[in-house]
């Protein structure tokens, strides 16, 4: 029987309304780093927002990467477990190795405009079945008769990132 192998992407948005301790640390430190690094692309102090920098300053798209250094330490503290997404027992179950950090918006003079996101890419999962709006998945492992599965609900900011069919 053909197996459908999927990876999920959870996009965790963090902004000035975020209240969890981890989120606020990421918010504060990424904003501080943004203000520092943005000066590299704004030496004439002409621009104020991240959008302006992206549009007018050559190379400013590197700010995604450059600012990510401020939050790598927090990423490590997650121990490779994707936050917020729970199975139907209320437990975290998704593991990640790959991520992408992005600046959505920012403003060097207005911290409340600062908004960033982590895209967490899950490890490959076998998608066995769909029960209403729940997906039944298991970790991709070879040659076991009984496999342990997780049931989780489709929800905002969670996407099926890739699909592969295995014979």
């Amino acid at each position, binding site marked *: 029987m053909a197996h459908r192998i999927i990876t999920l992407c959870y996009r965790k948005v963090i902004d000035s309304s975020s*209240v969890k301790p981890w989120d606020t640390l990421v*918010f504060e430190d990424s904003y501080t780093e943004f203000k520092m690094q943005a000066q590299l692309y704004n*030496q004439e102090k002409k621009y104020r927002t991240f959008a302006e920098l992206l549009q007018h300053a050559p190379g400013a798209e590197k700010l*995604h990467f450059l600012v990510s*250094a*401020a939050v790598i330490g927090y990423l490590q*503290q997650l121990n490779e477990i994707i936050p917020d997404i729970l199975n139907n027992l209320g437990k975290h179950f998704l593991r990640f190795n790959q991520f992408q950090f992005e600046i959505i918006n920012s403003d060097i003079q207005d911290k409340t405009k600062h908004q960033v996101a982590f895209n967490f890419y899950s490890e490959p999962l076998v998608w066995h079945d769909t029960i209403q709006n729940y997906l039944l998945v298991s970790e991709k492992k070879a040659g076991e008769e009984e496999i342990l599965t997780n049931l989780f*609900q489709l929800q905002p900011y969670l996407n099926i990132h890739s699909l592969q069919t295995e014979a």
Partner: protein
Amino acid sequence: MERKNFLKSLLLGALTTPVLLTACDKNEDTVTPSEGTTDSGSGTVTNPGTSSSSCTVAPTETEGPFPTKAPASYVRSDITNGRSGYKMTAKITIGNTNNNCAGLANAIVDIWHCDAEGNYSEYGGSGMQSTNYQSVHFLRGRQVTDANGLVTFTSIFPGWYNGRATHIHVHIYNANGTSLKVTQIAFPEGSGTAVAAVNGYNKGLSGYTYNSRDNVFSDDSAGVQIATVTGNTTDGFELAIKLNVAA
């Protein structure tokens, strides 16, 4: 300052809660507005991300791990990150032109340079995904100057790429993170120099851009951007330069 912001963000969170309540009421669900703590009750609402409200079970796990304040991954003296090449110690002194070029303490100094092949650490390709977050920011570092204005980095001797002489980028900030100067460090050239000894690693120096033809360094006829570089390929190299800024 940090605490104030933290409290402010808590307040903002409190202000936005009614919005979430309204959103959830439409779905006629039990509401558990408890993002900050682990809820062990039978709540049915959780809020992944910040502003979405989906209808899934609330977290029911033991709290933790607890986040702790972490510095930017740039903050380290050894920026090698496993990149291979000849060891190089860079000693950069920051002077203050508003104080007779005396050493400037507590300045923040960022440096970055390419690896032996001429590549910088950055997001590659369209996917922009990184697997190994231990070494994503290789050959990039940040240090704060001591009382004498000195910072020291351990790295490798930079390689080169088309169109540029060997160089190290430097961004100097004051203690508050305000930019004071963005500049580059050049290397001495000719027989007996480190550039000649390293010989472009595996690339050789065919097609190399020398300082006099480099679009950044060619106007530096006085050579103020050129560092002193000593050492050899066996013991490693030591680079020293003083960069003066108005602070």
